[in-house]
């Protein structure tokens, strides 16, 4: 294993420290428990948006903290969910009295740790809500499984819901918006190389020189299937069609009911895409694939959307939700309405995403 790191145990804290040194005007970093938070937190009168998850997906989440996006992010060890004390302490730090929304990627570990954090925060009288992101169409059958994983839509949700906080949305409004973003977003990923978790010291999986993994997650999990390497156009078409033609997806998720102070089951169904829809197209690098290759993918994706009658009104292209140095990419399509689009366009200033300011 060759990486630009020092001691294995120091990888995450040193990266956080470097980020704090690089962007002191935007973020601060708290250690023990670890979390990144807005330099100007708590932001008066605004609902705090908090996310988190394993490290190794940078810039998500720590690099997406700042004006117009997250108020705090809780990084776990590499590819490992953070622990409840992190989210709990972060919530205390950035809560301005208007409440806290946890945006949680749907992985068993993340879900359970954020649930325990929500219970701790609620017990202290903090208004708290949790919304799941579960957008990975590669996970097919979900009735008896952990359900779809949270992937690319998370980044788009953080941008849109973060802007809504800036605009003065209430906790309930923000939760409703986040839920809307989630059911309208669909993603799929693929890998052409593995990544190496520093603590493991060797690649998570072996992939022959002429094969790829389709339908991977963002933690070096094996994908849905392994197949012979194909051209960028073929890969893009396969993934784009899986996303665009995905049937309605129904599932039950648990959300914290702050009035009842208990967990309630919520039924959700993703409406399928249809001709005439406006979408944000997000082509994401897994970390090791350079942006130049993403343009070949975007070129074909734009073509397919065009043929399917989907109008790409905005795009995001680059490494935003990564798997360390893995080579590969993911595609996310998010159907947007005027509300989402307005918040997408709103100014944002974070280490990893910035415009309008």
């Amino acid at each position, binding site marked *: 294993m060759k990486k630009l790191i020092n001691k294995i145990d120091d990888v995450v804290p040193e990266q956080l420290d470097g980020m704090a040194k690089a962007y002191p005007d935007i973020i601060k970093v708290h250690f023990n*428990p670890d979390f990144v938070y807005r330099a100007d937190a708590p932001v008066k009168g605004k609902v705090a948006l908090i996310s988190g998850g*394993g490290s190794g997906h940078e810039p998500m989440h720590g690099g997406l903290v700042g004006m117009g996006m997250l108020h705090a992010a809780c990084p*776990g*060890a*590499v*590819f*490992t*969910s*953070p*622990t*409840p*004390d*992190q989210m709990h302490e972060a919530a205390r730090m950035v809560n301005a009295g208007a409440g806290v929304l946890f945006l949680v990627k749907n*992985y*068993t*570990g993340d879900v*359970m*740790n954020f*649930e*325990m954090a929500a219970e701790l925060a609620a017990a202290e009288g903090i208004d708290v809500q949790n919304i799941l992101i579960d957008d990975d169409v*590669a*996970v*097919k*059958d979900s009735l*008896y*499984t*952990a359900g779809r*994983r949270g992937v690319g839509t998370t980044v788009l949700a953080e941008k849109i819901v973060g802007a809504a906080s800036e605009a003065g949305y209430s906790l309930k409004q923000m939760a409703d918006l986040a839920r809307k973003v989630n059911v309208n977003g669909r993603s799929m990923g693929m890998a052409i190389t593995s990544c190496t*978790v520093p*603590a*493991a010291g060797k690649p*998570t*999986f072996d992939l022959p020189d002429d094969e790829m993994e389709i339908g991977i*997650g963002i*933690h*070096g*999990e*094996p994908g*849905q299937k392994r197949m012979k390497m194909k051209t960028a156009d073929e890969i893009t078409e396969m993934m784009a069609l899986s996303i665009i033609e995905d049937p309605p997806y129904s599932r039950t998720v648990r959300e914290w009911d702050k009035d009842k102070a208990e967990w309630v089951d919520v039924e959700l169904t993703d409406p399928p895409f249809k001709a005439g829809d406006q979408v944000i197209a997000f082509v994401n690098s897994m970390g090791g694939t350079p942006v130049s290759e993403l343009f070949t993918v975007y070129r074909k994706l734009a073509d397919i959307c065009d043929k399917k009658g989907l109008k790409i009104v905005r795009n995001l292209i680059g490494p935003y939700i990564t798997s360390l140095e893995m080579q590969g990419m993911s595609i996310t399509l998010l159907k947007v309405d005027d509300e989402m689009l307005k918040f997408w366009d709103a100014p944002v200033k974070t280490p990893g995403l910035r415009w309008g300011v």
Partner: protein
Amino acid sequence: MSISRDDLVNWVKNSVEILHENSEYLTELDAAIGDGDHGINMDRGFKAVLAKLPDFEDKDIGTILKTVGMTLLSTVGGAGGPLYGTFYMRAGMAVAGKMELSLEDWTAALDEAVKGVVMRGKAELGDKTMVDALKPAVDALYKCIDEKKPLEESLQISADAAKKGMVDTIPLVARKGRASYLGERSAGHQDPGATSSYLLLKTAADTWHNG
């Protein structure tokens, strides 16, 4: 025969060692059907427990178990963190204030612990999770009580039941946790969480064999 506080502390200490030794093995199991961090996570958590142990090893068994659980909760992360955190916290609550445990106490503690895991993770037997190792171990203990088996032997039988449960996860298709994303591809691999659970129960049996 009973389990003294020192025995219990020794179990925790031996667990630290066993999980460290098996860290790579557990991680490999997790790499096959998960994300390759289970051994690393458990090792990190139990090292943190070892570091904090001097602060609370002179407390009662209930407090010790609860503190182990809280430490794991804030250091393991992933699915393992809340599950094993809950496991030890619930076990501790079941034997609050005790300075030594009978076979019945230990069985009650383990029963509560496993119920906590099920409450948190909603896994059923056969979902290819740690529950597949833990549940048979509890059932075996109750059977031993019925059959009036001695403590040492019961612990061994319980560990054997966990081992069988662990091995039996191999052909299963995962329905909970990260491995469930793999669908059919998860069959043919042993569940890492069931493996760590077996290792912990085997360590209990081994520790208290000479205890």
